[in-house]
């Protein structure tokens, strides 16, 4: 595997810990990738720090994705892939929300590109993004009922 090893990882984590030690719940280093697990109420603030802190400078939100860990709680695990173009660095922010309250802050105020990424997660998993300007289904038809990518939704669909 020749992807650039995350040499800057410890610097990034250290900056985030200095800013707010509560935000860095857990750090996972696996296969050359750094994941910072953040409590969901601190996600927006941490993301803002990642973008605006000049030592972090994660200007590009590459991807937002959800993993349904059903039946493990907290059920929905959100993964945000950040890229710093000037520093040639990558980071993953992870947070989890429960099935009873699948709500998390929208990252649109920080990266406008989060718009469709979050709409897709809402469409397929049913997670509500607080502060999203236009949260509605994007891939499935308007009247569709259910959230297909949840693990308890059958692949063949419901009829």
């Amino acid at each position: 595997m020749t992807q650039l090893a995350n040499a800057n990882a410890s610097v990034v984590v250290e900056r985030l810990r200095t800013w707010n030690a509560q935000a860095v719940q857990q750090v996972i280093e696996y296969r050359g990738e750094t994941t910072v697990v953040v409590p969901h109420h601190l996600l927006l603030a941490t993301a803002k720090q990642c973008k605006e802190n000049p030592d972090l400078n994660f200007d590009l939100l590459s991807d937002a994705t959800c993993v349904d860990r059903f039946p493990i709680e907290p059920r929905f695990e959100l993964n945000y892939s950040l890229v710093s173009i000037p520093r040639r660095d990558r980071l993953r922010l992870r947070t989890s929300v429960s099935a009873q309250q699948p709500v998390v802050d929208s990252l649109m105020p920080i990266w406008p590109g989060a718009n469709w990424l979050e709409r897709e997660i809402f469409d397929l998993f049913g997670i509500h993004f607080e502060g999203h300007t236009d949260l509605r289904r994007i891939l499935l038809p308007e009247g569709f009922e259910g959230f297909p990518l949840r693990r308890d939704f059958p692949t063949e669909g419901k009829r």
Partner: protein
Amino acid sequence: MATSETALGTTKAMVLNMGPQHPSTHGVLRVLLELDGENVITAVPDLGYLHTGIEKSCEDKTYAQAITLTDRIDYLNPLGNNLVYCLAVEKLLGLEVPKRAQYIRVMMVELQRVSSHLVWLGTHALDMGAMSVMLYCFREREEILKIFERFSGQRMMTSYIRIGGVAVQPPAGWRDQVKRFLDMMPARIDEYEALLTENRIWQGRLKGVGYLSPETLIGLSTTGPGLRAAGVAFDNRKAFPYSSYEEFDFNVVTRTESDCFARYLVRVGEMRESLKIIRQAMDKITDDGPIKTEAPGIVPPQREKMKTEMEALIYHFKIFTEGFSPPPGEAFATVESPRGELGCFVASDGSPKPLRVHFRAPSFINLQALPFMVQGQLIADTVACIGTIDIVLGEVDR
């Protein structure tokens, strides 16, 4: 949306449907255009007409079976999709792919890039009215598809790149075929440029159209030629090299004007750079050598071994019936697709089938910029902007 009553002498905006059936939306894309005469006030894309639930389907298949689904996501870049998925799974498994297989992968993916840009150029020119360019581009693309057919038996949905390497050895005589293509191609690209680059109509249709600043583009998560035409030299092959790209000598093509014409120049330049990479890869690929890594239980054994050795037979049986189980964890691999940063996020729970496969589709994300690009411009410019973003609906909708 304007829905109020209008007083006499004032105008009211009209909402018009562009698509989902439309020759210029490059697939089943529906764009609701709110128009003031010929000018666009707002454009709202409506997606999902090609949504087939590929990501959900991957969860029902073993890791190796899911490769065939990946071909069909960005159907103009099947090898790129194969590659990004295989890189993610290889990351999860901790597999190291042999250099020879990496060079073959690079060559195939760059051939795919040329083929994709040829389709882009042909269809974009067709939208703008330059119909003959379409036929020339598809004529050259035929040569690439013939190469793919020689290698894998398939013109488009090759599934040639597999976990651990590539599917089969390169066929006899492949070097002559690729060399003939490489010798012919630069002159053909010169032909396209002779028809278009200095053409007053082409420049008139594309210069100054669809401008977005680099800050806006990065904020909207745009990557690929659209971002490079704004002066941001971000290319995954250079920034986060994968599959031995750090051993290849090529340039990242950038412009600064960030309009449709700049994106055209960037993509044509990228075609030329790809030809350089293909030639270097062709020289690096040795006549003999491995095409897959040795990983019993994960990568299927060679057929000769499977037919004579007991262990190989057992491994073959286990791989094709049960599949292999990567350790629990997640991996995110990215490649530079012709459309931008193509990523694949794979999550494993320790079972033979993936827990979650997600594709970071550049067309889906780049399309977010469309409403910003076309605001205040003409409908004809909307056609140019949709073409310049270079979307493939299979990737937008998955």
